């Protein structure tokens, strides 16, 4: 955002009587009835939309998680208390694999593409030639939709026609690997595709942060004899705390939300063995012939609670300064 210095658009005209400025004029008390109506409408409509389309459904999911319902007739909703949760935790085979896969997803993303993106940003944040070209190439996947990313990787992983098996057989291997069908492999195959996209995102976020970094700090570190790694780990990284928090939130949220790419690479039919994720289990239960809305909602609430931990951290970090 370039911030151009602004001049008042309307200069004070002499025929308007000056009121004594006893308090800042933006206090609500100064607002006339027309202003109040305008502000009420301006805030009322967006707020109503937000509450109706986002928060009401979120709360309704919470409510439905204590019921059993086939999703057809509203009269068939029956309150069953915590049964869904008990079922999920004790007697729903795909649940714990899904949790495990979500955790693997998070750890993988946090430990490989995220630090790699930071590393690339640090390498690119210097006056070197072609930096724009490198940035664009690595960032490009982020511009594509997750669905398109899924299709692109489908033609790499396809067991018969894909690039990967083609390369393997060209290298003389007789193995015919079903990358997306093998329950021990497919999660990792999807993670590679997801990491491909995630790296560029982190790189751009970190680069933006580095632009605001005071170069004098780096120079001081160099004068003190710190090498590149020491400068990064001891000086740059700790000073980038606000960006680090954003990156952490982005990484956690993207890991929890992962859906599209798995959906497409799984063939678009819900969760597949080896690729169960909470988001897919929810979809499995609420869409389809015999839907278990209560069940799906309970799963959604589990996902919501985990997300809220991340959202809460972010909000506290962001708004603490303002609240004072």
């Amino acid at each position: 955002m370039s911030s151009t210095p602004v001049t008042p658009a309307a200069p004070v005209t002499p025929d308007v009587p000056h009121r004594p400025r006893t308090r800042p004029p933006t206090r609500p008390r100064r607002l006339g009835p027309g202003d109040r109506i305008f502000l009420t409408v301006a805030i009322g409509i967006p707020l109503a939309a937000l509450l109706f389309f986002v928060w009401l459904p979120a709360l309704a999911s919470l409510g439905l998680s204590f019921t059993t319902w086939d999703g057809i007739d509203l009269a068939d909703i029956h309150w069953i208390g915590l049964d869904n949760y008990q079922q999920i935790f004790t007697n729903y085979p795909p649940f714990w694999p899904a949790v495990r896969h979500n955790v693997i997803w998070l750890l993988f993303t946090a430990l490989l593409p995220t630090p790699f993106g930071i590393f690339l940003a640090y390498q690119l944040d210097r006056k070197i030639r072609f930096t724009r070209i490198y940035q664009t190439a690595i960032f490009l996947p982020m511009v594509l939709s997750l669905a398109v990313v899924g299709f692109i990787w489908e033609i790499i992983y396809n067991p018969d026609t894909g690039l990967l098996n083609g390369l393997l057989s060209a290298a003389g291997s007789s193995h015919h690997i079903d990358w997306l069908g093998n329950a021990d492999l497919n999660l990792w195959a999807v993670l590679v595709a997801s990491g491909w996209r995630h790296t560029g995102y982190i790189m751009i976020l970190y680069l933006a942060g580095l632009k605001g970094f005071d170069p004098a700090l780096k120079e001081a570190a160099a004068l003190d004899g710190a090498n590149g790694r020491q400068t990064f780990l001891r000086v740059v990284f700790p000073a980038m705390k606000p960006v680090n928090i954003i990156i952490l939130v982005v990484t956690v949220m993207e890991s929890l939300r992962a859906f599209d790419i798995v959906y497409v690479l799984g063939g678009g039919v819900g969760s597949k063995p080896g690729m169960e994720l909470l988001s897919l289990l929810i979809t499995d239960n609420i869409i389809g012939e015999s839907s278990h809305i209560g069940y799906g909602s309970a799963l959604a609430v589990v996902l919501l609670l985990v997300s809220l931990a991340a959202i809460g951290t972010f909000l506290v970090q962001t708004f603490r300064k303002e609240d004072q």
Partner: protein
Amino acid sequence: MTTTMTRPGAGTTARHEPPRTGKGPRRQTGRHVMLAGIALLWLVPLLWAVYTSLRPYSDTAKHGYLSWPRSLSLGNFTDAWQQSGMPHFFWNSVLITVPAVLGTLLFSAAVAFFVSRFDFRWNIVLLMLFTAGNLLPAQVLITPLYRLYLLVPLPQWMSDSLLLYNSVWGIIAIHIAYQSGFCTFVLSNYMKTIPKEISEAALVDGAPVWRQFFQIVLPLCRPAFAALATLESIWIYNDFFWPLALIETGDKRPVTSALANLQGQYFTNPNLIAAGALMTAIPTLLVYFALQRQFISGLTIGSGKG
């Protein structure tokens, strides 16, 4: 959070050359080799998709996908364009994306104006409500939203299903409600950087609040709008989940969700699917290359120094 804006260009003028560590040119070459290698590696999947899409199915079926091309053509693109009704789906995407982006910007500008220019007690709560709303996973909302959409009637001229369900309006509405959170967050930070004296001058001048909003604050936010419009256009265009769940018939879906149809229909023809997928990506790629600066500054707003 006083200034969370990242100002493109701010770093480039003030930035110093990093101190030389004595390993000068050799190190630079090494870095170039590494970065070029990584950049190339990152492009491989995309280039492979392009290569596949340019080859006729018969050629690849006979010689395998990892082979030298006998001929290259745009045949798969024209086939995907014609056979799968891509123009229709593109039009659906336009019908959803344009109003959704405009609505999101207008709504979030109004909320941001409110929370950043007036000292009301509930400002922070309001801002948090919007911001947190954007962070909720879509799956948490989907069941009640689906039911809600089945309950809300629409007049015939808006939706031939007579419901919010299965209409583009429903998709536009959820995009606006959901994306307003992010844009409100960004715009309120931006508006805080506009000096309050401007509003004061206008108020002394007797200008009503709506004029302050439309004639002073909105024009000053133009750079933020440009960044957010670019970013939101790509995000909303790329969205996959809402239409999949909230639009029943395939022919009303936007092009990204309709790709799934293509996959089902032409499961055995990867060349055609590659062409379809790439074609879907063309608008976002064009927007990105034309408005790269805006896109990136939109994405990185809020991640600058706080």
